[in-house]
C-alpha cells in the first residue's frame, strides 16, 4: 500500500446527535492526527449530518480510521477520498475600510479579476467574499494585504465527491433490516 502522506477528505454521514463530534475528534486525537479543517452541516438527507474533514495522512491510516468511524453507533457511513476524487471549495471573508474602495482604484480591479463578491458596504467598511481553492483565496489575501485588511476569516473545506455515495439507499436498507 502507498505509504505516502497525502491530503484526504473524509466524509462521515451521521445521525444528528449531541456528542458525536466528541467521539469523532477523539479518534483523531488518539492517533495523533492533526485536523487541517473540519466542517459539519446537514447533508442532502433530512436528519442526517455530514462531517467533511481534511487530514494529511497515509492511505493505510485513512483506511484504519474509517473503520473506527464506522464502528461508532451513530455513524451511518464514512468514506475517504483523494483530492482528485472530489470537487472542493473553501470560502474567505475580508473586512476592509470603505474609503479604500473609493480611494484605491486598484482595489476595484482586484475585486473584479478575482471574482470576489461584495457582501455589504457601509460608511466604515465593506465585506468581500471569495469562494474557491485555497490558493485563490490566499492570492486575494496577498493582494489585499497591501492595502490593509481589518478582519479575515476562512472556512474549512466543503466538498462533494465525483462518485455517488449511496447514503439514501443505505438508510432504506437499515430501515428494512
Amino acid at each position, binding site marked *: 500500500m502507498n505509504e505516502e502522506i497525502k491530503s484526504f477528505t473524509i466524509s462521515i454521514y451521521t445521525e444528528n446527535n449531541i*456528542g458525536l463530534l*466528541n467521539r469523532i475528534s477523539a479518534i483523531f486525537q488518539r492517533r495523533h492526527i492533526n485536523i487541517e479543517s473540519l466542517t459539519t452541516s446537514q447533508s442532502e438527507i433530512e436528519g442526517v449530518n455530514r462531517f467533511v474533514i481534511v487530514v494529511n495522512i497515509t492511505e493505510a491510516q485513512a483506511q484504519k480510521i474509517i473503520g473506527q468511524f464506522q464502528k461508532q453507533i451513530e455513524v451511518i457511513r464514512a468514506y475517504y477520498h483523494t483530492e482528485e476524487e472530489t470537487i472542493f471549495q473553501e470560502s474567505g471573508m475580508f473586512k476592509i475600510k470603505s474609503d479604500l474602495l473609493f480611494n484605491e482604484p486598484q482595489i476595484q480591479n482586484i475585486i473584479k479579476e478575482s471574482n470576489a463578491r461584495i457582501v455589504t458596504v457601509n460608511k466604515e467598511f465593506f465585506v468581500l467574499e471569495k469562494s474557491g481553492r485555497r490558493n485563490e483565496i490566499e492570492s486575494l489575501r496577498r493582494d489585499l494585504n497591501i492595502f490593509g485588511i481589518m478582519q479575515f476569516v476562512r472556512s474549512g473545506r466543503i466538498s462533494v465527491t465525483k462518485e455517488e455515495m449511496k447514503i439514501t439507499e443505505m438508510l432504506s436498507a437499515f430501515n428494512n433490516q
Partner: protein
Amino acid sequence: MDTETANKTQEVLSKTERITGSEAIIKCLIAEDVDILYGYPGGAIMPVYDELYKFRNEIHHVLTRHEQGAAHAAQGFARISGRVGVAMATSGPGATNLITGIADAQIDSTPLVCITGQVPSHLLGTDAFQETDIIGISTPVTKWNHQVTKASEIPEVLAKAFYIAKSGRPGPVLIDITKDAQFGELDFKYEKCTGVRSYIPTPKTNLESVKAAAELINAAKKPMIVWGQGVILGEAEAELKAVIEKAGIPAAWTIMGASAIPTSHPLNIGMVGMHGNYAPNKLTNECDVLIAIGMRFDDRVTGSLNTYAKQAKVIHFEIDPAEVNKNVHADVAVLGNSKDSLTELLPLLNENSHEAWHQEFKDLYAIEFEKVIKDDLHPTKEGLTMGEVLKEINVQSEGNAAIVSDVGQHQMIACRYSEFNKTKSNITSGGLGTMGFALPAAIGAKMAAPEREVVAIIGDGGYQMNIQELGTIFQQKVPVKIVVLNNEFLGMVRQWQQLFFDKRYASTEMTNPDFVTIAKGYHIDGKRVTKREELADAIKEMIASKESYFLEVCVEKEDNVFPMIPSGASVSDIRLS
C-alpha cells in the same frame, strides 16, 4: 427466564401508565431481566435508589464498597453468564469511580450498562456540586453513551442501551440521567430495542470468503489456529471444537479465549503471547496458514509485528470490521459471528490429522516442560511456587472452578496452569490489565453462577487495590474463595526490573499487613500457608468450605514467570529463562 419472571416482564411491557422517571428506570431494568445490580448511592441518583427500595423483591441491589468495585462486579457477572452486567452510581465522584471498570469492559468487549445520576438539567455546565462531564469523560471508553434530560426519553434510551451493550461485539454503555428526569413523569411503555438505524452489529458473512478460507486450510501443511474471546462471546465453542477435530489443526488461545476448549483436549496447544507457551509462540513463525478466530492481534500476542507470522497466509474470522487489517494483514477475512462462520466453514473442510506437524508442538512442549513447567509445578527448592498452588487448586476443584485472576505474575501463572473443563471459566482483565479487578469481579461471577466454584487468584499488590470489597462479600454472603499469592513484591514489575533495569527494585517491595486478620475482621474465615506440607490440606479446606474463604500463600519472593517474549521482540525470540 422462569415463567414468573416472564409474566412480570410481559406485564411491564404491555401496560402504559403514568409514572416517574426513576420508576421507569427500574421497570426498564425489570423488562431487560435484570435481577441484580451493583452500585453505590449518592445525591444525584437518590430517586432511583428510593424506587429500588420499593422494588427490592424484584431487583437485588448489591452495595459495593467503591464504585470501581461495582463496575468490576458487573463485569464478572457478565463474563461468566454472557448477560449484561449493570452498575449504578451517583454523579461526579461516583461516576468517575466507575471509569476504570468501564475502560476495562470496553477493551475486553464486556456488555455493561452503567447508569449514573446527574445534577438537574438547569445546572448542567455550571460546575454545580458533584457535576462532572461524565459523557465527555466516558466517550473514549464506551461503546455508546447518552445523557437523558427528560423523563420521557428513559424507556427508549435504556432499551437502546441494552441492545447496544449486548449485540455484535459487546461493550459498555453509559447512560447519564439528570435528577429532574428522574423526578419527572412520563407515560411509560416499554418496547425492547431490536435495531438501531446506522448500526450493523453483525456484518453478513460472505460465503466466498468462507470458501477461500476452506481452500487455504485444506491445502495447508502446517495450519495453526489462534482463537480469542470472540469464540466465547459468539458461543462458538462446539463449532470451534468440531473444526479443530475435523481438520486436525493445533489450536492455541489468547488470554481472553482461555477455557473455550478444555485444557486437556489433545489439539489444545496452549496460550500465545508474552507469557504464553513456547510451542505456539515459536511455531507461529513456522505455520503456513494462521487462522485467527475472534481475536484482535493485540501487541501482547504478536510481539513485534515486523516479524510476526510473515511466512503464513492469514485467515481472520472477525465480527468487528475495524479489526481486520488493523495490526496484521489478512489474506482472507471472514466477517461475521464466529458461530455462524465456523458453521459454514465446517462442511467445506477436509478431514486431516497433520500428525508430523502436531509432533513439532509436542517436541517444543517437552523442552518447555523440562526448562520451566517442571520447576513451576513440581519444585524441589524450599520456597512455594505460584504454579504448585494452581496445580493443587486444579486437583481439589477437579478443573471445574472458574478462575478469576488479578493482574501480575500470578495472573500469568493462573492462565498458564489452570485446568479448564468448562467454557467461561477464565475471568481476568486482559486488555487493560487492571489491578484490583479480581476481588470484585469474583463477587459478580459467583452471584451470576452460584452453582460454580469461583476462585479468585490475586497478588498482594492488586488485592490491596480493592480489598474493601471484603465488606461486600461479608454483607452479601457470597461464597467466593480468595487466594492471595503473597511474594511481598509487585512481582511482575519486579521481574522487569530484574531483567531489564539492573535489579533496581524501585518501589516494588511491599510491607504487607496481616491479611488473615483483615479477612477475619470482615468475618471471613482464612488461613495462611507458608510451607509446602500445609498447602494441599489448606486448599482442600478452602474448596470444601460452603462460605467465603481466604487463603494467603506465602510464595517465593523473587520467582519469575517464563517463558517470556520481551516487549517489542519477535515471538520466535521467546525466552525460557
